[in-house]
């Protein structure tokens, strides 16, 4: 275990930024701290980096208590959200800074520093820009300078705060792939903060979903995506159709809808049902399930509001007795169904999850 966080609490005035956070960071992994703004993810990262002190709790780095250590002694590389490059220094001097400020006993010779900075600049593909100032660089280039600067001190852990937050979509995608490759080559334990679920799921080895200062779920991306531990995680990771319902006698019913969602073994009371857009199926109504075209508990009648058909998948917005429902399906299958805007169609819920209100653990996965 590289980093162990236990029982960390942090308040800012009356605002609880972190509430008894437990977390293990494994050696060599790329870990994402994912959550909405105000969820405490950046505060946690700053505590790991030694830029913030927790009110309570303990933190160990490689088995050693780290809270009393300065950032220098922790040997962490920190990449700031807005890069925080030294504006009066060239790219070269920015990268060399961490080595230049080392005490004389440890500091490598000028030639070694120059060589090392050149190597790092080559790594981040910025060698030709060594003499430029930060203001003369693009956002993506600044980001890479910040990364090279953090790597120069040979950190044991790399911490990145919203590494792609300030970049435009195309650059962001490129840099994301590039960072993943870099991590696979260097195997440096890295923690990055993001509010972008796609970024977290695509890039990280493991994802930590945070909400209101607490860790909601930790796991590999596919597990977290497919088995969300709480309504919050379900809601936060990707698009989802949400129905407030009431469980009674092993069946959850949505007010005003003819849907019956099996809730075997769950206590009666209010609950929330989640269905991802690709776990909802559209059927044709002219092939009735029970003869007269009337809806069955399995197939509900809905009206097509809009179809967004760009690329291989189509996104369909349905009106299910006043509830908006989003469906994602293959373009070709949609064409085969012959359903268009304004048409009536049938809706089947294939797979979903039911959360009993107030009890995170009480869930069932529903699969037809």
């Amino acid at each position, binding site marked *: 275990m590289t980093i162990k966080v236990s029982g960390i609490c942090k308040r800012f005035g009356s605002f609880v930024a972190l509430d008894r956070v437990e977390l293990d960071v494994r050696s060599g992994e790329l870990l994402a701290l994912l959550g909405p703004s105000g969820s405490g993810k950046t505060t946690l990262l700053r505590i790991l*980096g*030694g*830029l913030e002190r927790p009110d309570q709790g303990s933190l160990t780095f490689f088995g050693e208590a780290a809270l009393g250590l*300065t*950032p*220098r002694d922790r040997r*962490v*590389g*920190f990449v*700031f959200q*807005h890069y*925080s*490059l*030294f*504006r*009066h*220094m060239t790219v070269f001097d920015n990268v060399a*800074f*961490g080595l*230049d*400020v*080392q005490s004389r006993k440890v500091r490598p010779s000028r030639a070694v520093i120059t060589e090392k900075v050149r190597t790092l600049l080559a790594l981040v593909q910025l060698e030709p820009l060594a003499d430029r100032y930060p*203001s003369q660089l693009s956002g993506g280039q600044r980001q890479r300078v910040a990364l090279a*600067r*953090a790597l*120069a*001190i040979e950190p044991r852990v790399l911490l990145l705060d919203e590494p792609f937050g300030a970049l435009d979509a195309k650059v962001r995608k490129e840099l994301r792939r590039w960072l993943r490759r870099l991590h696979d080559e260097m195997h440096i334990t890295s923690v990055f903060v993001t509010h972008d679920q796609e970024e977290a799921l695509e890039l990280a080895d493991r994802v930590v979903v945070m909400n209101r200062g607490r860790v909601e779920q930790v796991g590999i991306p596919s597990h977290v995506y497919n088995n969300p531990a709480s309504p919050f995680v379900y809601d936060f990771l990707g698009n989802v159709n949400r129905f407030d319902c009431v469980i009674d006698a092993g069946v959850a019913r949505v007010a005003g809808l003819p849907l019956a969602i099996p809730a075997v073994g769950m206590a009666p009371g209010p609950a929330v049902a989640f269905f991802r857009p690709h776990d909802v199926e559209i059927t044709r109504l002219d092939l009735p399930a029970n003869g007269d075209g009337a809806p069955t508990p399995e197939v509900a009648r809905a009206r097509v509001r809009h179809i967004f058909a760009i690329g291989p998948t189509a996104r369909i917005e349905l009106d299910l007795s006043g509830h908006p429902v989003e469906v994602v399906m293959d373009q070709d299958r949609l064409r085969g169904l012959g359903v268009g805007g304004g048409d009536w169609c049938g809706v089947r819920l294939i797979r979903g999850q039911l959360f009993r209100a107030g009890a995170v653990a009480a869930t069932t996965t529903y699969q037809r």
Partner: protein
Amino acid sequence: MPIKATAPVAGRPMLRDPPWVRWSLIGLALGFLGLFVVLPLVTVFAQALHSGFGPYFDALAEPDALSAIRLTLLVAAIAVPVNLVFGVSAAWAISKFEFRGKSLLITLIDLPFSVSPVIAGMVYVLLFGLHGWFGPWLRAHDLQVVFALPGLVLATMFVTFPFVARELIPLMQEQGVEEEEAAVSLGARGWQIFWRVTLPNIRWGLLYGILLCNARAMGEFGAVSVVSGHIRGLTNTMPLHVEILYNEYNFVGAFAVASLLALLALVTLVAKSVVEWRWGDSLAGTRH
């Protein structure tokens, strides 16, 4: 019709006033400046050289005048560095830390600007004068503050201490702590952060503050007048010496010293303009 590239104001028809308005406004501004700034300045030099260069330089070489010049430079040489250190630390504390009483500190820094310099001088007389709070103690230890160099330095420091801090606080607040945090995360120690990160970012604002502080330190009259005691050749600074000579109807002497004082002020202004002109871009870069 081609679109004309014009200056912002002249290009807007709504703001294009009739010529007579424009010319009378420009005339008014220039006339005012000429009457109240240029003319007095010219008069100072004209009066000083009234009887030619010989008497002018004689007046400056007079022992009391030389002593006043030395004293003024000495007072500035002590007060400006002290206020430099104070201003930087105050600006640092205010812009980088959160603490109770911060707004009170900001208000206090402005105090010398709002209080009459005469009062500042009086306060030091009340504190350190013969019958002041610390008077007996100072006398017992054979120390003299009022009517001596320490008093002059104290009064000058009081009057000039807002300049550096006032110049730096907005600048440092705007720059925030991001670069300092980056330096901390890269292992820099406190002094290294100050010398390598903070100071380079504030250097132009700092230079500005020092120049203004220096100009005021050399030109201060009111506060210094109260604590000086006007002892010729001992506690007279240049502004005080000018007054004495003037009251004795020694116009050539008075204006000669005054012209030197004005010259020092002009040098400061020129230095400031050169800084702006030569490094205007980086100044704008660090200021905005």
